[in-house]
């Protein structure tokens, strides 16, 4: 697992209020189906910005951006985080 993915899972554990440990989630699992509420997704968004020192642009402030670990990885990559 990449460092970025590990950090994302740490943020989800700290701010996602999920009923399960983020380590048990597959990258493609739908976080909303796993219990991520809209309000918790905001806290996740803000914590990701802190953790990676980025600011999600308006176009990424959408529900789909935070739907899965994979979608968060993809969004962060467009901001230069974890890009190859």
């Amino acid at each position, binding site marked *: 697992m990449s460092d970025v993915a590990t950090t994302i899972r740490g943020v989800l554990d700290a701010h996602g209020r999920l009923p399960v440990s983020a380590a048990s989630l597959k990258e493609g699992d739908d976080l909303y189906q796993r219990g991520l*509420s*809209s*309000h918790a*997704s*905001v806290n996740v*968004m*803000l914590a990701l910005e802190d953790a990676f020192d980025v600011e*999600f642009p*308006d176009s990424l*402030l*959408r*529900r789909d951006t*935070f739907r899965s670990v994979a979608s968060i990885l993809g969004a962060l990559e467009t901001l230069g985080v974890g890009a190859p």
Partner: protein
Amino acid sequence: MTAEQFRDRLLAEELLADGAVPGIYHRSFALEHIIQHLSAYISAAGEGTAMRRLHLGPVQARATLEGSGYVTSFPNLVGVVTSFSGTEADVPGFLDAVEAGGSWLDHTAPTDLALCSAGCHPLYPMLASSVVPTDGELFEVETWVFRHEPSVDPARMQTFRQHEFVCVGSLDQAVAHRDRWLERGRALLAALALELDVVPANDPFFGRPGRLLARSQLAKELKFELTAPISSSNPGAVASANYHEDHFGVAYAITTPDGAPAHTACIGFGLERIALSLLYTHGTSVSAWPTETLAALSIDPATLAEGSR
């Protein structure tokens, strides 16, 4: 007629009186008569269903702003009550400050009160850490609410009344309540010969986090507004039907008998906005309103004319 022109007309015809601050108005007895009949008309739609019926005051516990999450989502709209916080020894300094103008607020501190943020918000603390019955808990409430948004648009008053029907129960019960009341509300207002639309909507959540919340709310179709013309500027939301998921259930540890967080839903009718839409649509002369509208509201224009001043 633009919103500003409509406001000027309502003031000129003395249906409203200027409250000296944008968005603050005094209501004439004639307008209040319409609003009271609207309230009774809406209330009658809930007759025959057992629910707890409450008139709420214009203030609530300040903690409700925090518990409901309102203050984080709408910090720009809240109102907190402050009061003199000193002792008798501080009074001379306070009086000097009043005379000097303006700075006397430095001698005040927030109380544990806030202006009511929404009709349903004060209900959830009443149910905190409780289990709702199998059939869910239903409420009918009417209350004054406050939104700090000064405007020349008479539809955007800073204080106004909401008449709400609220459900606290399972996911299915909450969604069914929202959908049932959206349809019932549409029929109720259509019977007043208002030109209605039903539109998916979002609340005006504040800032960048707010944009994520607003878009989520729209994408999940949690909120629907009933809109009607209130001026030529914009149709306004005269009612909204909202499904809050388990937001308040989690916040206040309210559960269903199976132990899951309760889900909640409400429909809120904006009494002033509906009255303004009637006045805009049918004219400010109530005697000229459609017979069906007057009959539905049990308004007798002759009685209204006698008691209007």
